[in-house]
């Protein structure tokens, strides 16, 4: 997709989310109601499977195309597993498997958990417990990563084969526990080359970085609007230099997070993914903490209420920055890589990517 077409895609996605993701919708999702109409609209708009070839029912696009959708979903706090479905479907495609309709999720998402795949006659069965699975109970299917005989395998498993225990993140997005007890896979195949136990977290961190960039953009827009509307001492608070400078700092973190996230999606298309995902998750995660603090500061007490919608973004940011590895995890990953390469290799590496 050319960048002009991506601009059109961004307009389409923004319109869809603006129309359908209301405050009431997010609130009802927080009470556990599945936003069926939103999900159907996304599917009908062909937005849930950007990376699946057209022959497989998808949009046949790139990760940079997917970036537009994922970022917008983060910006509008869309309460659906869109990012998860995009990653899960890409893994299925990479393994040569067909992609079912409906919301998808991935497991395992935590570094300290593994799932066991085993052949049982013709079929492959899945065993083990995965916690904090995003939208685990809401998904139609789970895309699981395991290995058979040391070879990374992707398995597609109907979610209802798992016992589920509900759990949530700060934004009350489902983060469920799924227990698989020799659950039969609908299909399984060796994963694409290069996929290993870390791959789910890598792609998870990739999409969270773009969701964070979108949510930070939302904080910026809400904060600027509030600063021009709210009056104190006889003038809009945005007239005060102290507020202006806070918003300038917020804007700079929004920009940095956006650039880092988009660059990582470009790397998902062209290579060096691990480096750029680490950069993006670190930078967007740091921006998330600072931006959330500044947005709340600008909003004063009203932004601290459930009634105001600022928290839809800030609570997501506080969770997302930790999901799929926080800044501390990725800083160590990236730091190990850089120090192993050595100081003199930093600049050539930085400019080669």
């Amino acid at each position, binding site marked *: 997709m050319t960048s002009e077409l991506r601009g059109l895609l961004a307009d389409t996605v923004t319109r869809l989310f603006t129309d359908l993701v209301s405050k009431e919708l997010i609130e009802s999702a927080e009470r556990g109601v599945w936003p069926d109409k939103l999900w159907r609209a996304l599917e009908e708009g062909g937005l849930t499977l950007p990376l699946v070839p057209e022959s497989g029912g998808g949009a046949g696009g790139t990760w940079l195309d997917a970036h537009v959708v994922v970022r917008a979903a983060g910006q509008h706090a869309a309460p659906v597993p869109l990012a998860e479905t995009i990653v899960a479907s890409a893994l299925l495609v990479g393994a040569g498997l067909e992609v079912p309709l409906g919301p998808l999720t991935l497991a395992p998402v935590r570094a300290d958990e593994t799932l066991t795949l085993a052949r049982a006659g013709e079929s492959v069965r899945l065993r083990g417990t995965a916690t904090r699975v995003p939208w685990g109970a809401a998904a139609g299917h789970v895309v699981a990563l395991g290995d058979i005989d040391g070879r990374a395998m992707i398995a597609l498993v109907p979610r209802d084969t798992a016992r589920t225990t509900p759990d949530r993140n700060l934004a009350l997005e489902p983060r469920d526990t799924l227990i698989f007890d020799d659950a039969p896979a609908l299909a399984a195949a060796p994963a694409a080359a290069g996929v290993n136990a870390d791959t789910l977290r890598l792609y998870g961190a990739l999409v969270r970085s773009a969701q964070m960039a979108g949510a930070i953009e939302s904080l910026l827009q809400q904060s600027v609007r509030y600063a021009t509307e709210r009056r104190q001492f006889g003038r809009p608070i945005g007239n005060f230099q102290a507020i202006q400078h806070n918003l300038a700092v917020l804007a700079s973190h929004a920009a940095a997070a956006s650039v880092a996230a988009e660059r990582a999606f470009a790397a998902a298309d062209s290579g060096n993914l691990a480096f750029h995902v680490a950069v993006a998750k670190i930078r967007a995660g740091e921006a998330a903490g600072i931006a959330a603090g500044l947005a709340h500061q600008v909003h004063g007490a009203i932004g601290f209420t459930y009634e105001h919608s600022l928290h839809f973004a800030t609570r997501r940011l506080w969770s997302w920055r930790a999901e799929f590895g926080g800044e501390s995890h990725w800083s160590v990953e990236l*730091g190990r890589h850089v120090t192993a390469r050595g100081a003199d290799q930093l600049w050539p590496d930085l400019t080669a990517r």
Partner: protein
Amino acid sequence: MSVFQFDLTELPPEAEALRAEVREFLREELGTTPASRRAASWSGYDPEFSRKVGARGWIGLTWPKRYGGHERTFLERYVVLEEMLAAGAPVGAHWIADRQSGPLLLRFGTEAQRQRFLPAITRGELAFAIGMSEPDSGSDLASIRTRAQRADGGYVVNGTKVWTSNAHRSDYAIALFRTTVVPDKKHEGLSQFLVDLKTPGIMIRPIIDLAGEHHFNEVVFQDAFVPEDMRVGGEGDGWKQVTTELAFERSGPERYLSSVALVMELIREVSRRPTERGISAVGRVVAHMATLRQMSLSVAGMLQAGANPNLEAALVKDVGTGFEQEIPEIVHAVLGVEPTVDTGGELEQTMGYLVQRAPSFSLRGGTREVLRGIIARGLGLR
């Protein structure tokens, strides 16, 4: 849609080919120059080096060939700049002319001025200083008072400029003077001039910085005569001129790479004696650095596309200088080395140099506060 636009920019193959040439050149020229010397970056001043860079055709890279330029792209220029800075090359003797003075003349100068100055700049033979700030005019630049009054064949200048970097070793300065006093309209009546720094009536006095180094000067004009044909553009166009080129001045890699020599020493030390804390700090620093490079490159891409990314440039400079200043803090927190001046290893001396330079990073070229004001204006807050 976001107020700020940072599209991903990819460098074309010719830019990468040029990168390899520049790298090879720098390897030969800089050899084993120690980190503490490389840390001077664009404050490093070496006319002989600048001539060599000019001979390679890397000054005035984007300018028309008829003025000695090479008609290459802004992205190729970007690559030359970032390679020079990353290596800590002493580019100070041609930096200002290449970045500001030359582009100003290309845009607003007369044909005679271009022919006279630009080819010598591209050869690395003509060094420029910038005469803007005055004792009573810093961030409030439009309040300058140095007067250029009409005289036979030109102007007579009286007043004082300060913080004029390298005035003592430059050939010319591009200086902003007040040609007309327009009451209550401080942005009007300003004009820029090409000033030969050897002109009688100009006195250049050193201002020694806190580290004992001489970069700054006070430049006093006492009835100094500047010929009419050394005025840049029309009378009263000065303010428009100084604000036009800000994106070029503010978004370049020099706004985030000033501490790169210390980043390298940090990595060297942590590689040698790895600690979890050190490794984690390196990861974070590299994440910031990689992001800033993309942001800076993105502005270069917009310049290449003919856009005017002044806001984005202000933002890159604000974030970039914050990053540069944080590096000595991080090194202090992680390694706890004592900064030194003339003893100790490269790490200690580079630290000693940069910890003393760092305060200037968010002052030069527009203070942090001025930049944040510009960003706030871009957000619609003023």
